[in-house]
């Protein structure tokens, strides 16, 4: 991947600081509105919804996260650590000879290796998710927009970022109004 690609991918996944928000009545209308804004040249768009909007990634041009690779790495690290500690404890630091059986008793170490590997992978998935999303982050400018509480209940919100190259307070508001939102709001506090 060229370094320019990496930069765009990073820029695309960076959190959008909303300058203006609009609420729609259904995920389909939200997706349609986002697609139209994208066609109009907006780049920094974010959607907020009570459940995932199918196809949002394609509309927003988001890349698939590298989370699975992180999870695999954490799982393998957990398994390796578990195998190592069992070998170290029972074969190296305190060799225990049971009836002349081999010290390197790998079959007996499989269950613990598997379990700790899964444990490592699960930690990777959970903390990887937190790292990727930047959560916990209890305050966000979007929360200060009038009526944004519905984003977890029945409102499907769209936001245009303040850093969008096409953003202009008057023009963007007009563009959004033509999409027929339920309401338009602006964050009352910015970071």
């Amino acid at each position, binding site marked *: 991947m060229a370094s320019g690609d990496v930069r765009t991918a990073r820029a695309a*996944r960076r*959190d*959008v600081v909303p300058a203006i928000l609009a609420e729609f009545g259904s*995920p389909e209308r939200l997706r349609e509105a986002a697609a139209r804004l994208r066609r109009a040249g907006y780049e920094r768009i*974010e*959607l*907020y*919804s*009570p*459940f*995932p*909007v199918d196809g*949002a*990634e394609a509309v927003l041009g*988001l890349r*698939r*996260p590298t*989370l*699975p690779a992180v*999870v695999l790495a954490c*799982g393998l690290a957990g398994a390796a650590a*578990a195998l190592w500690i*069992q070998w170290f*404890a*029972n074969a190296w*630091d*305190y060799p*225990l000879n049971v009836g002349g059986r081999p010290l390197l*008793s790998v079959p*007996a*170490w499989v*269950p*613990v290796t*598997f*379990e700790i590997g*899964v*444990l490592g*992978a*699960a*930690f990777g*998935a*959970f903390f990887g*998710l*937190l790292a*990727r*999303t930047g*959560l*916990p*982050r*209890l*305050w*966000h400018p*979007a*929360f200060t927009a009038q009526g944004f*509480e*519905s*984003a*977890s*209940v*029945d409102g499907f919100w769209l936001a245009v970022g303040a850093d969008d190259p096409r953003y202009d307070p008057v023009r963007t508001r007009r563009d959004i109004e033509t999409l027929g939102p339920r309401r338009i709001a602006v964050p009352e506090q910015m970071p």
Partner: protein
Amino acid sequence: MAAPAAAPGPDAVLRTAEGDAELTDRLLAPLWSRARAWWIAFAVTGAGTLLFALAIAYTVVAGIGVWGNNIPVAWAYAITNFVWWIGIGHAGTFISAFLLLLQQRWRASVNRIAEAMTLFALVQAALFPVLHLGRPWFAYWLIPYPATMQVWPQFRSALPWDFAAILTYFTVSLLFWYTGLVPDLAAARDRAPTRAARLTYGLFALGWRGAARHWQAYRIAYGLLAGLATPLVISVHSIVSMDFATSQLPGWHSTIFPPYFVAGALYSGFAMVITLVVPLRRIFHLEDVITTRHLDSIGKMALAMAWMLIYAYVTEAFIAWYRGDVFERYTLLVSRPSGPYAWIFWLMLACNCLVPQLLWSRRLRTAPLALFAASLLIQAGMWMERFIIIVTSLNRDFLPSSWHIYAPTWVDWSLLAGSISFFLLLFLLFLRFVPFIPIGEVKHLRHELAREEARRGQR
């Protein structure tokens, strides 16, 4: 195909007609209510939990000699309870993880209840082996740490495997449960009537705002956690079964034990899901969210598991005869069906093999009361199964001179009753403080169903 009527049929996964906001408020309502019935239930299970605490305190202070255990019956009730509880936990993960991977839609309404059941069952399960140590304050010796005594856990034994398996299972279940919970905690935060509730749920919601960038990573992480939890379901009870199978005792030393235990675990777990869900949907009027379709599906799963278990019973007995080992033949073919615990053995077969045959009938599968009664019998049967496996294998071992009868004491009974109370107490707290129906998932599913319906109407 003609478009079906507007009202969804009895087979529908969801039958709600209200708007998203009304549905959310209805599903969140138990969080803000102060129902008297809840307090009564809380008091009853609280009293049972107190009994549990007393029995534990007495056991720890006096030693496990206050139990009915003896030599040769050294395992008895504590391990029976342990295996029973940990088995119950399995259906929760199965419903929430395995059925997610298989994209089974009926999982959506019941998965959170099932996962909570898993967590709380594991809490009970983990207590028993620790108490059984006799000196529970040394439980940390199971962790490999550089001790001044310079000894390490013996990892070639099945018991440290068990420790790793349960620790992992609990942690992964908790992470999976909490990850699924975050969007609903955000909904609770946004609908909270008081500032204190808003702050509390807000803290646990981690500032979730449902951003598309977050949902993308969230779905991947949730799917991965499900994929990780699925092999755990199989591995944990397999490892528990190895506590038995790696020993030399007739009745325990058998290669069928891992699949046999996993099937039994899922069986009792599905029964527990029925036991919890049937009263719940009635009390909270959730018949349109947890429909008869759910009961029907869980009933079918229980029936399938029952047949796997029956297969395992038959194989176990057949191999005992076919192998020709005199001790194994005696334990499985003489001592169990006609020995001192024969009545429990036959009762167990009735509960585990005959009762589930009622589930062939669709009418009974969709009749909540019949299902509830069957689930209680199945759980009793599964408890007896573990009792039979453990006690009848131990109480008549190789030498008749060392045979000994086992009888539980009041402490044993208190621990069993107490752990059931504690489980129900935790479940009550869960109902009171956590959105127990996955609201976001139900709304998403309803949306998908409506879209499919519309598409079918167009055609």
